[in-house]
């Protein structure tokens, strides 16, 4: 018999293989949509590390997403940096900013932290408009889509899809490694019982700030990729609603679950479009109904429910 670990590895490999085949089956427009799904998935994983695993609620991750996007846009637009370099820079910058924001945020717990991060989300569009010289004000910055290098016969949509998929796989492996080891156990222990965690010798303050930084870095990388995929940045794209959409994504996908980020990303990308196709008059009401249905049917998110179903199946088989 094979253990659950082997099964999981098989599922992951099969999914990656399927994802690699998609560009040769789907239209460029569908690919663009899936590129966005991957971008959202990276951002959601970042937020999930913070909120799902570490228990810190953030209503402001749209701000880091925007920071990442603008880092890429400004570097390309003002300094003509090759786009590939801008992605790690966006991640590093968000890591530092997130870490620094994490330090004062230590004093805030639960809902109070949520409000503080909410303030961040509110402030960012206006700050972006203020530094008009750099950010282009509310007109934003127009970029060019990167073409495939080395004479590869790929459309720019296909190329961006593969770039995003590559970044996604690397970041997901890193996160899985991080969370499966000592650091991950410390992060979860702080969520479950901060006092006990401290008693066991975990430096709560350091871990919480670091988690904030890593989480912001993931979201920043996602923002950088989105700037490339959309080929345009403007303050209006990074409003409060984006931050709330991320929160919806991780809850629907499954808190404290790595695969949940993918499910959540699929949800926030496609469900609003379906809602609009069902009813033009009240798309957000339909979206709300979807949200309630999902929460009612799968209170632990999609990933949590799948895990539950898998567990039941395994037990059934064991009983036989």
């Amino acid at each position, binding site marked *: 018999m094979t253990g659950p670990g082997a099964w999981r590895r098989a599922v992951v490999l099969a999914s990656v293989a399927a994802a690699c085949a998609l560009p040769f089956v789907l239209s460029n427009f569908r690919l663009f949509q899936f590129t966005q799904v991957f971008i959202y998935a990276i951002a959601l994983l970042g937020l999930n590390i913070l909120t799902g695993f570490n228990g810190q609620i953030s209503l402001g991750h749209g701000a880091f997403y925007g920071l990442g996007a603008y880092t890429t846009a400004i570097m390309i637009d003002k300094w003509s940096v090759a786009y590939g370099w801008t992605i790690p820079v966006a991640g590093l910058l968000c890591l530092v900013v997130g870490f620094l924001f994490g330090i004062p945020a230590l004093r805030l717990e639960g809902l109070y932290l949520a409000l503080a991060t909410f303030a961040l989300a509110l402030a960012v569009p206006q700050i972006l*408009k203020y530094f008009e010289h750099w950010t282009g004000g509310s*007109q934003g910055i127009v970029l060019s889509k990167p073409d495939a290098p080395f004479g590869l016969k790929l459309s720019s949509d296909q190329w961006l899809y593969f770039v995003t998929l590559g970044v996604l796989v690397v970041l997901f492996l890193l996160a899985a490694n991080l969370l499966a080891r000592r650091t991950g156990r410390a992060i979860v222990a702080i969520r479950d019982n901060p006092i006990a965690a401290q008693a066991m010798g975990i430096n709560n303050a350091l871990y919480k700030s670091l988690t904030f930084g890593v989480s912001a870095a993931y979201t920043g990388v996602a923002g950088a990729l989105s700037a490339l995929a959309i080929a*345009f940045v*403007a303050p*209006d794209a990074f*409003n409060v609603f984006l931050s709330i959409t991320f929160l919806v994504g991780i809850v629907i996908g499954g808190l404290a679950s790595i695969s949940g980020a993918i499910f959540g990303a699929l949800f926030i990308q496609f469900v609003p479009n379906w809602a609009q196709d069902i009813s*033009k008059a009240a798309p957000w009401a339909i979206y709300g109904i979807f949200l309630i249905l999902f929460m009612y049917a799968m209170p632990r998110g999609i990933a949590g429910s799948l895990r539950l179903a898998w567990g039941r199946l395994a037990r059934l088989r064991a009983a036989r």
Partner: protein
Amino acid sequence: MTRRSIVILALVAALGLAALAGSVSAQTPGVTATEIKVGNTNPYSGPASAYGTIGKGLAAYFKKVNDEGGINGRKINFVTLDDGYSPPKTVEMVRRLVEQEQVAFVFQTLGTPTNSAIHKYLNQQKVPHLFVATGATKWGDPQNFPWTMGWQPTYQTEGKIYAQYVLKNVKDPKIGILYQNDDYGKDYVKGLKDGLGDAAKKLIVLEQTHEVTDPTIDSQIANLKNSGANVFYNVTIPKFAVQAIKKSHDIGWRPLHLLNNVSASVDVVLKPAGLEASKDLLTALYLKDPTDPQWKNDQGMKDWLAFMQKYYPDGNTKDVFNVYAYAVAQGLVHVLKQCGNDLSRTNIMKQAASIKDLSLPLLLPGIKVNTGPNDFYPIEQEQLAKFDGERWVLFGEIYDAGKK
């Protein structure tokens, strides 16, 4: 006999082939013998959802056109999607329109940042991007963006008109400016300065700005009064325009008050600010204001009201956006009629760029739509109007920013 029949056969075959070839080459995505598919995005949700009524008004107007038999036998299939005023969503939705829905062209996409996001894409795809709903200046650039065309007078155009008026009619003008600190405000100020030319530095005595999030603009008004300005160039959206009109009246400042068209609505701005305080305001207009009593018996306005009742009964008949939608939809219908049976994308763009002296019933009398291969600004005329305490009284000539 046989030879003749062979010749005839050959001729018929050639004709058939030609017809076939013709029909193949004329095949534009979204165009069939019975239908023209038109794509659009509007903010039906989100911070700018007040503009959503434009999209609904357009859909209602095309329903009317279809009920009356369509255009050259083709019905308009108007596909309008919500982008929530979010540029990434606009990109996704417009790509969906072009690549999935296969629309013939994109029409009246709303908003400056949202249109900026799709500007390059549509021009690369060579899809007409017609009559965009924004007053920014960059949409009329046929050299670099031959597939994009604006519609309404730009903010800069309007600013130039005020400059012309001030230079001609005000003795020793000292101009004080209040503007919203963003692209919209700056565009208006640039227009005025361009219009004033070299004299701008001397004539403008004070510039004050405000943020869209400021609670009040009282101190700015006081500063402007103290600067000794005798002309007040008021570039603010309705909420702040009401405050500015009230405040300057309350502190007894009586300059020549130039109010930007954005806030010219009688119901939304002037009534809340006080009709007495609003007296003698000046603005530039190009559309008929539905709340202005002087159009009560105007045939165009009557037709519009009948249309609203029949096709868009939920729509607000005091909202100038619904007038706007009706007028621009008529502009498009004119272009499509002019295309005849050649609905290739190239010809749609060509016809959009050859509108000659088109009058529309809801534009002010005398204002005409004109475009050309090098003129992608359809409406460039406006007329000044003075508020007499009840309605806008049009006066003077029609200013034309296109003529220089």
